[in-house]
């Protein structure tokens, strides 16, 4: 009991005390969160009408961000596969930080779903047993299960490892080994289920294509690791954690292959739609060229495509991959490119033209942007706080006390 209280205060001190940079960063994030929270308060009072969504485009910026972030969360697995299966040592040590990123990303996903609901207080209706979960018919029910399961797996693995390290012990592979093995197909499944969410709707021909699930996975394995490369550079600069260049370059190489696959799948989709040219292809026409004079997404998608292609080349060539300036540029390109392509570039064309042929050009409103920013800031704050523990535990600076 005594140790519990003592460790609680150690933990509290760890959160509350840090460098000046830490305070400024947390204050900045808190400011964004407050902005988002006040905008959300307005939304919960007046309803979702303060967003740009209407009956014709009933999902928008919130679900776009959700889709992107599920991909980022799934990509934590990318580090697990080479690390544990192939025992590629340089990556093994830093898989932990990837899993912590997965926790933050999934938390943001859950937040995005909650703020998108019309009646969030009724969220318990979706639970099995106490609610009335529509399993297995509804893909959303599957998504709830797999996302929360993934959160649980990653939380358990990382907290267990950190806890063992923090009390100066080794972690038992027999405990986390099976969970790690489980997390690989589970990570693939969270993004597959999210893809199936869109894929299964025969009402929306733009989404009702088998290519959606493979594309989601390919683009997830670009964006997630790109974010991690940026984060690792920050972590190793701000702390004593050693992350070898070799590890970073290996991840970058894997991104190149994933982006190559993503571009190939994009080409396949583009061919099918534009060559066959049936009525169902109006959506992709709207996306890339505009339809009946409505072309709000056209500059965005072309920017995203060009960024993706440039990033692919930068990651592919070892000369640019192993130069940190071009590498970081490429990471930025990939993150922005996939964010657009898988975000609004996926969700909006599914609703344009709508089921009765109408074109409504959706644009996120300012409250929507503020709330989204607030959720991202929440995720960043979660990751920051997790790292505030993980880094010193990892480097041996922070220890909790036990009887032994």
């Amino acid at each position, binding site marked *: 009991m005594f140790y519990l209280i003592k460790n609680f205060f150690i933990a509290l001190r760890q959160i509350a005390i840090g460098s000046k940079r830490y305070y400024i960063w947390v204050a900045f994030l808190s400011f964004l969160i407050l902005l988002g929270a006040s905008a959300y308060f307005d939304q919960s009072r007046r309803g979702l009408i303060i967003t740009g969504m209407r009956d014709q485009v009933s999902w928008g910026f919130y679900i776009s961000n959700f889709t992107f972030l599920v991909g980022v969360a799934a990509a934590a697995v990318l580090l697990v596969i080479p690390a544990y299966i192939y025992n590629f040592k340089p990556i093994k040590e830093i898989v932990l930080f990837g899993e912590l990123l997965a926790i933050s990303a999934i938390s943001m996903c859950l937040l995005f779903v909650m703020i998108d609901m019309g009646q969030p207080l009724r969220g318990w209706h979706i639970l099995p047993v106490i609610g*009335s979960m529509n399993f297995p018919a*509804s893909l959303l029910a599957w998504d709830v299960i797999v996302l929360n399961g993934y959160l649980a797996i990653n939380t358990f693995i990382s907290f267990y490892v950190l806890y063992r390290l923090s009390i100066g012990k080794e972690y038992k592979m027999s405990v986390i080994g099976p969970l790690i093995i489980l997390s690989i197909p589970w990570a693939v499944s969270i993004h597959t289920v999210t893809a199936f969410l869109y894929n299964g709707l*025969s009402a929306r021909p733009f989404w009702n294509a088998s290519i959606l699930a493979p594309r989601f996975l390919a683009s997830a394995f670009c964006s997630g690791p790109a974010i991690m490369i940026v984060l690792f550079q920050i972590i190793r600069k701000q702390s004593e954690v050693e992350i070898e260049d070799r590890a970073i370059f290996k991840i970058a190489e894997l991104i190149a292959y994933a982006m190559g696959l993503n571009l190939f799948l994009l080409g396949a989709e583009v061919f099918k739609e534009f060559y066959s040219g049936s009525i169902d292809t109006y959506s992709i026409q709207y996306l890339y060229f505009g339809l009946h004079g409505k072309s709000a997404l056209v500059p965005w998608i072309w920017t995203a495509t060009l960024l993706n292609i440039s990033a692919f080349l930068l990651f592919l060539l070892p000369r640019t991959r192993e130069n940190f300036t071009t590498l970081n540029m490429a990471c930025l390109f990939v993150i922005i490119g996939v964010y657009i392509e898988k975000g609004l570039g996926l969700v909006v064309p599914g609703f344009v033209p709508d089921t009765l042929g109408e074109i409504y050009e959706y644009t996120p409103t300012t409250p929507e942007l503020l709330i989204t920013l607030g959720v991202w800031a929440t995720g960043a704050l979660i990751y920051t706080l997790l790292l505030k523990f993980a880094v010193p535990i990892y480097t041996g600076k922070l220890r909790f006390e036990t009887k032994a």
Partner: protein
Amino acid sequence: MKREKNKRRELSLDRRTFLKGAALGLAGTALPLDKADASFWETFFQKHFREMNDTEIKKVLQRLEKEAEQKYKKAIKIGNEKAMPGVLFGYGLDLSRCIGCRRCVYACVDENNQSKDPQIHWITVLRFKKGEKFSDLEESEKYYNPPQVPEKEYFYMPVQCQQCENPPCVRSCPTQATWKDPDGIVVIDYNWCIGCRYCMAACPYGARHFNWSEPGRKPEEINPNTHYLGNRPRYKGVVEKCTFCIQRTRNGRYPACVEACPVGARKFGNLLDPNSEMRYLIEHKRVFRLKEALNTNPKFYYFFAYGR
């Protein structure tokens, strides 16, 4: 010196903890724990409609009627008529007669207590140019506003919930807030819907509409004869749609749109009754349904009057 500093920090930590606790306590008093807000908890814990027995449903209806009366200062009756046995509702729409006058749209708005601000219409009338692609809904126009209808080169097609026998919306709802009742009507429990709008993405006919804000309807415009699964006053953040006027049809009456149509383009009846005009319709007229390739099996039949 350092020990003093640490001690001060520890003290300030305690003050911080105290303040946090006080704030939480204050927030706690905002929770509706007293009796006057008992209905808040009743609403929050209300069970799924299909899991309630008749006494529980009766209590819920009484509570809802009271809430509606408080809001609209008007006595509102919320009924719970069950599906009649041996009934499967079907709808017929005569495309050779519709003149696109939209009287059905507004009769529906009045009968079913739809929000006027923001505007919700359960029926959409599409206008097609004769000679152009018919099944390409992209070529249709719903905002037509000529001085007179019908216009010479156009024909009109109203669309509303098709009450599919294989509804994609029911399949996609994560909480089972929408389901198909035995008489074929796809209904929504407005107190169970969480407003995720997945059903709206799943519907191929654009038949489902969302309350993006609190429904705006004046008390004098409220139709007080309502059904729990039909036209009772709805809430912000839930989905709604045509229910074949469940409050009328389960009492033997025609839906409001059928009665409003000035040219008799709308037909309604029991598909299982061999003597009904609906049976005659689907057996003798050349009927088709929208987007039949999607296999949703709608019970909304379009036809052209001539021919047998």
